[in-house]
C-alpha cells in the first residue's frame, strides 16, 4: 500500500512537471517559433505610449530575455522554495508554494486561485449530484424496459442532450428563466456556502441543471449500455435462480457491475470539471477557475494560465486516485488481484 502510494505520488509529480513544461512551451516557444521577440512580447504588459526602453526593461523584469530553461527553473524554484519578485519599484517576497504574480495586475496568483476554486467546486458538486442521480436512474430504467417507448424516448432525449453546446443551453436558460420569467437567479450571482447555504443553492440552481443536462445524457447512455451487458451475465442468472427478488437482483447485483466502469469516467469528468468548467462559467458569468483561465489567456497572463493548468491537472490526478481507491471497495474482484 505504501509502495503504491509512493508510486502514485511520483507519477503525479511527473505529470505536473509535464503539464507545466507544456504550458511554458505554449506560452514562450510557440510565439518565438512564430516570430515574436522578447520585446514584442513585453509590449502587451506596458502602456500604449511606452518607450522602447521601458518595453525592454519590462521584458528583462518579467524574464523574457532569459533562455527558456532559466525561466522555467525560476518559476519551479518559486513553487518549491519561494522567490523574490522585482515589481519595478520594490522587491516582493513570495513564499512557497509560489505561483508567481500576475503580469497585468501584479497580484499573487495562488490566493486568487484558491478563492476561485470554491466557486468552481460548488458548481461541480451540485451538478454532479444531479447528473449522477438522473443519469443513472434514466439509464437503468431504459435498460430494464429495453425497446419500450420509455427507452426510445429517453435515448433520443439523451442524444439531444449531448448534442447541445453547453454555452448555448446556458445562455438560453438564463435568457428565459432569469430575465424573462424571473424564476431563477441572474447570471453571475454567487453566494458563498458558508454565508447562506440556501442562497448558495438558489444562485447556482440554473448552472447546476444546465451542466447536469449535458452529463446526465452521457451517463444515461453509458448506464444503459452497462446494464444491458451485466444483466446478461451468469451471476445475474444465478441470483435469479436462487430466488432473489427482481429488485434485489437489479440493484444489488446488476447495478453494481454496471456502475464500476462508470466510476472511472466519473472520476475523470469530475476532476476535469473542478479544474475549471470553462464554458459553463463563461456562459453564466461565474467567477470560477475556468473563467480565470479564459481571462488569463485573453490577457496573455502566463502566471495565471500556469496556475490554472497546474491546479486542473492536480485535481484530475487526485480524483483518479480517489476513484482507484474506491474501486477496491466497490468491486471485490479488484481486491483479490
Amino acid at each position, binding site marked *: 500500500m505504501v509502495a503504491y502510494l509512493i508510486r502514485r505520488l511520483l507519477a503525479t509529480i511527473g505529470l505536473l512537471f509535464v503539464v507545466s513544461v507544456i504550458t511554458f512551451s*505554449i506560452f514562450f516557444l510557440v510565439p518565438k517559433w512564430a516570430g515574436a521577440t522578447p520585446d514584442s512580447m513585453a509590449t502587451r504588459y506596458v502602456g500604449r505610449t511606452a518607450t522602447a526602453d521601458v518595453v525592454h526593461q519590462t521584458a528583462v523584469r518579467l524574464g523574457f530575455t532569459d533562455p527558456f530553461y532559466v525561466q522555467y527553473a525560476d518559476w519551479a524554484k518559486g513553487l518549491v522554495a519561494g522567490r523574490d519578485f522585482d515589481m519595478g519599484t520594490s522587491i516582493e517576497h513570495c513564499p512557497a508554494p509560489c505561483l508567481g504574480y500576475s503580469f497585468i495586475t501584479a497580484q499573487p496568483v495562488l490566493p486568487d486561485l484558491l478563492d476561485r476554486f470554491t466557486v468552481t467546486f460548488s458548481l461541480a458538486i451540485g451538478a454532479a449530484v444531479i447528473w449522477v442521480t438522473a443519469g443513472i436512474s434514466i439509464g437503468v430504467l431504459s435498460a430494464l424496459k429495453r425497446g419500450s417507448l420509455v427507452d426510445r424516448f429517453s435515448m433520443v432525449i439523451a442524444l439531444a442532450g449531448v448534442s*447541445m453546446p453547453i454555452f*448555448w443551453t446556458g445562455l438560453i436558460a438564463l*435568457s428565459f428563466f432569469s430575465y424573462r420569467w424571473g424564476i431563477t437567479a441572474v447570471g453571475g450571482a454567487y453566494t458563498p456556502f458558508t454565508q447562506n447555504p440556501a442562497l448558495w443553492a438558489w444562485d447556482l440552481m440554473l448552472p447546476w441543471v444546465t451542466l447536469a443536462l449535458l452529463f446526465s445524457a452521457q451517463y444515461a447512455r453509458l448506464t444503459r449500455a452497462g446494464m444491458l451487458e451485466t444483466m446478461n451475465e451468469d451471476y445475474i442468472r444465478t441470483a435469479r435462480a436462487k430466488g432473489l427478488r427482481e429488485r434485489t437482483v437489479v440493484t444489488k447485483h446488476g447495478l453494481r457491475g454496471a456502475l464500476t466502469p462508470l466510476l472511472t469516467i466519473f472520476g475523470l469528468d469530475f476532476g476535469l470539471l473542478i479544474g475549471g468548467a470553462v464554458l459553463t462559467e*463563461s456562459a453564466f458569468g461565474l467567477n470560477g477557475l475556468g473563467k480565470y483561465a479564459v481571462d488569463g489567456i485573453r490577457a496573455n497572463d502566463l502566471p495565471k494560465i500556469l496556475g490554472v493548468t497546474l491546479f486542473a491537472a492536480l485535481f484530475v490526478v487526485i480524483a483518479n486516485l480517489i476513484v482507484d481507491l474506491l474501486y477496491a471497495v466497490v468491486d471485490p474482484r479488484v481486491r483479490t488481484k
Partner: protein
Amino acid sequence: MSTPLEVEPSGAGAATDHDLVAPGQAIEGRSLGQIAWRRLKRDKIAMAGGCFVILLVLVAIFAPVIVKYLGSPPDQFHQDLIDTKGGTLLPLGKFGGMSWDHLMGLEPQNGRDIFSRVVYGARISLLIAILATAVSVFIGTTLGAVAGFLGGVTDAIISRLMDMFLAFPLLVFALALAGVFPDEAFGLSGNGLRISLLVFIIGFFNWPYIGRIIRGQTLSLRHREFVDAARSLGAKRGYIMFTELLPNLVAPILVYSTLLIPTNILFEAALSFLGVGIRPPTPSWGGMLSDAVVYYTVPHFMLWPGLAIFATVLAFNLFGDGLRDALDPRAR
C-alpha cells in the same frame, strides 16, 4: 467500451438479412459493405441524420447561391431596419426583424442578415471539423496501430501518452495555444492562418480517442490466423500493417470519424465562442453566439446559430450511431 468492432457479420445480424430474400429467388452473395448498407438503410433515424448531413454539406458548398436568392450578403449592414431612434439598437419589427427578406431576422446594432451568416457559418464549421477529424484520424490511426502491433515499450509509451492527453484540461490548453498565436505566422495571415491553426489544434487534441480504439482493434487482430499466415510467408512488418491490418480497421475508422466530427464542431464553436477562433467579420456559429451574449434579454439572436450547431451535431451523432450499429450488430 472495449468490445472489439467485428466487421464480419456473425449470428443474429446475418440471419435476419437472409430472411429478406423472397422465396424461390436464388440467394446471391453479398459483400460486407452491401450487408452493412442494407442494415443502415433500414435504420430510419440514422438515414434521416445522414440526409441532413448531406443537405448541410450542399448548403455549405452552395452558400453564395443560396444567400443570393434567399438573403443578403453576410457582411451587408441594414441599419435602416434597426431601431436607432429608440436607442435599443434592436431590429424593428417582431421576432428580431424576421421577414421574407431576412428569414431569421437581423443582428442588433449593425443589422446583418442572420440567415446568410448561419449559412456561411456552416462552411467554417464543417470545413474545420472535417479537416480536424482527418488530422486526428491520421495521428490516432498511425500511433494506435503502431502501439497495438509492436506492443512492448512502444505500446507502453504511446498508451501513457494517450492516458495523459485524456486526463488534461484540453480546452484550456487549446485556448492558450489559439490565443498566443500572432496574427501573422508561417507566411499565412488572417483567417487562412486561423483556420489552419484551429484544424491543427483541434485535430491534435482529439487524436487519443481514436488512437485508443485503433490500438484495441489492432491488439485483437494481430494474433489472428491471417496475420500469422502472412508472417509465416515472410511478410515484413510494414506489409502486414498496411496490407493485412489496415483494411480491417476501415470500419472502426469510419464509425469513429463520423462520431468525432460532431465533437469537433462543438470544439470549434466553443473556441470561437470564447474569442480565440475565427476572427470577425467572417461568420461562424460560435462567434455569432458570442456576439449575442450582450443581448441576453432577447433570446432571438442566440437561437439560430445555436440551433444550427445543435441540429448539425445531432445529425452527425444519429448517423454515426446508426453506422456503428450497421457495421457492428453486436454493439447493440
